């Protein structure tokens, strides 16, 4: 048994924490707009220089060839410092291009992604396709060497800042379900792309992205036509371990405890009992993350463990934020206080990146062997 990081892993974690000491003011984990954007981009470039955005890409495409745990440690420390989240380009996008992209695509996108200068946004969700992505309706019709892309994406985070959109679209028949989907790289500035903001409760924004006959070169299709689904499943598998960073929860809880230390609430028996319960929940979050790292380290798919990790962590960060307001200090209501901000912000954590309901079904199917009939229907 060994429940602690290997010395070289711990050394890397410390290196990241030390590096972040010089980036205290980025504040890009929760915020993206305005001044934050420039600071985050500078941070990404500095990370790019260290090879940290391509840490576990294979060596032959210029990556660091490190085991997945290093990526986890990197983004977990980033979350603890509230510095930044993993750019989707360096994860899902780059790893799919590495596995399925053409040599031209690798050359065109990977160096910029690794340097922290090229950004992608995921165009998956639609008004009628959220958790059920196999039902996307955005359609790409072949026209010579191009596709003509039409439809609407929604909840597209960071779409307005990205250089490219990574668009899941239908190239098969209407009934083709998961068997008729393709992935296209779409220039955000291409004619026919309209991006409109949808303000969100955390003070940031989602986007609605409309495609009106956007001409996309067929050379921008990643992998084979109608084979996007298996590529998405595969890329999800390479990203599960960084989908939710448990140290975000640790940090939220530490902040709650230090806020209480300076308050008379710390002496209240009911408050203390609740804090003790939260401490156990935080420890549980850290423990299931370890089971995930154990599985990932052993080369197992970690489907169930990653579901535990995201489900527990996202729920516990809500419990912490909600407890802070339950304690009843009016100061916690003041707009911009950490308490009221986390109360708002944490609402999205059990939705984005796989809802809690979907994750419970993942556990029910893969760990318990239940919900067998619903699997047959898919």
């Amino acid at each position, binding site marked *: 048994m060994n429940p602690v990081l290997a010395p070289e892993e711990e050394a890397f974690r410390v290196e990241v924490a030390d590096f972040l000491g010089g980036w205290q003011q980025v504040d890009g984990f929760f915020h993206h707009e305005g001044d934050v954007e420039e600071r985050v981009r500078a941070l990404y470039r500095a990370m790019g220089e260290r090879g940290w955005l391509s840490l576990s890409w294979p060596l032959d495409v210029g990556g660091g060839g490190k085991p997945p745990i290093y990526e986890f440690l990197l983004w977990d420390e980033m979350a603890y410092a509230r510095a930044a989240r993993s750019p989707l380009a360096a994860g899902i996008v780059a790893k799919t291009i590495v596995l399925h992209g053409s040599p031209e695509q690798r050359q065109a996108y990977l160096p910029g992604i690794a340097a922290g200068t090229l950004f992608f946004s995921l165009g998956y969700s639609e008004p009628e396709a959220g958790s059920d992505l196999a039902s996307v309706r955005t359609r790409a019709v072949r026209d010579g060497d191009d596709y003509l892309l039409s439809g609407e994406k929604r909840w597209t985070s960071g779409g307005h800042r990205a250089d490219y959109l990574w668009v899941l679209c239908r190239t098969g028949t209407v009934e083709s379900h998961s068997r008729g989907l393709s992935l296209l790289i779409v220039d955000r500035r291409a004619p026919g792309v309209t991006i409109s903001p949808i303000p969100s409760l955390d003070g940031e924004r989602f986007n609605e992205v409309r495609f009106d006959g956007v001409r996309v070169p067929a050379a921008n299709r990643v992998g084979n036509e109608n084979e996007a689904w298996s590529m998405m499943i595969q890329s999800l598998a390479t990203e599960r371990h960084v989908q939710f960073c448990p140290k975000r929860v640790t940090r939220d809880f530490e902040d709650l405890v230090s806020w209480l230390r300076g308050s008379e609430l710390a002496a209240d028996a009911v408050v*203390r009992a609740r804090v003790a319960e939260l401490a*156990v929940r935080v420890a549980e979050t850290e423990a*299931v993350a*370890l089971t995930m790292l154990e599985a990932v380290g*052993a080369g197992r798919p970690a489907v169930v463990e990653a579901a535990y990790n995201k489900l527990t962590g996202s729920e516990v960060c809500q419990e912490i934020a909600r407890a802070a307001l339950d304690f009843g200090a009016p100061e916690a209501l003041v707009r911009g206080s950490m308490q009221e901000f986390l109360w708002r912000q944490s609402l999205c954590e059990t939705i984005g990146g796989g809802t809690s*309901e979907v994750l419970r*079904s993942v556990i029910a199917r893969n760990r318990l*062997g*239940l919900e067998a009939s619903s699997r047959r229907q898919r």
Partner: protein
Amino acid sequence: MSIDLEYDGVGREVADSVRRFVRDHDRAITEAGGSPDAPLWRALADLGVLGLAREEEAPLLIAATMEALGASGFPGPLVATFTATRLLSGETAEDLTSGQGLVSLGVPPLMPWAPVATVHVELDADGTRAWLARVRGSVEAVETLAGEPWGRCTLDRVTDLGDAGPALALGEVALCAYLVGAAERLLDVATSHAGDRMQFGRPIGDFQAVSHPLADCAMRLAAARALTRIAAYELAQGAPQAAARIATARLSATGAALATAYRAHQTLGALAFTVEGPVGRLAARVRQCTLLPPGVVAARRRVLTGLDL
């Protein structure tokens, strides 16, 4: 070495032999109800289990063993035996590790196993000190929720055994592992029932109202198991954070095991409400064990101490 939460070496061997033992004695364990008969208890002692507290790496060996014993709902004062044999020495301890004697360990007047015990160990109310004790007068016998023979009695302290902390810490790791093992068994029972039981033309486990709460139990148990094993590891290492970790593991294992027990009851419906059914005995054992000293309130206090709050 990468992260690994499995027991290794001797721990794994001991756990394997205990798993074989409980399989071979399945019927005797079930029929024992709350109280093992003398041959069953001595057979467990012959396996070396009752002397594990005196081994090197005791926390890991005991945790591995107790996960396996918990899965069978093995009756008897297992946790108390580990605690007492860490506190005692000489013939008194020998008496317990050989399975010839039986320990009553608790806070008087209501003492577990008092009517049948040969050794009595008194704890003070906050679980910091222990004494070897003797019963004065008679014991008023009672039976508990899980069918254990307890008794109300007056004790005279005979020998001061000193600081009970380290022995109770070991006992608490044993308790956590037992709860995790028992709850995993309950989850297995509930899951296989949910997969087999047909209603409305399909297995009830197809309904998310049934499957999702079980998924939550699986998740909470994964956390409690990991915390229990980490606590055992840190106690074996003599790590400074072990006390807070054990308290956390206790609260986690208690919460997860109770939630799983209640969910198993609900999933099996009326079948779980029968005396013969596969849930009632285990669930009652889980509930009873969660009250063992030093208790969850003390654990919560230790967690808060660890937070410096």
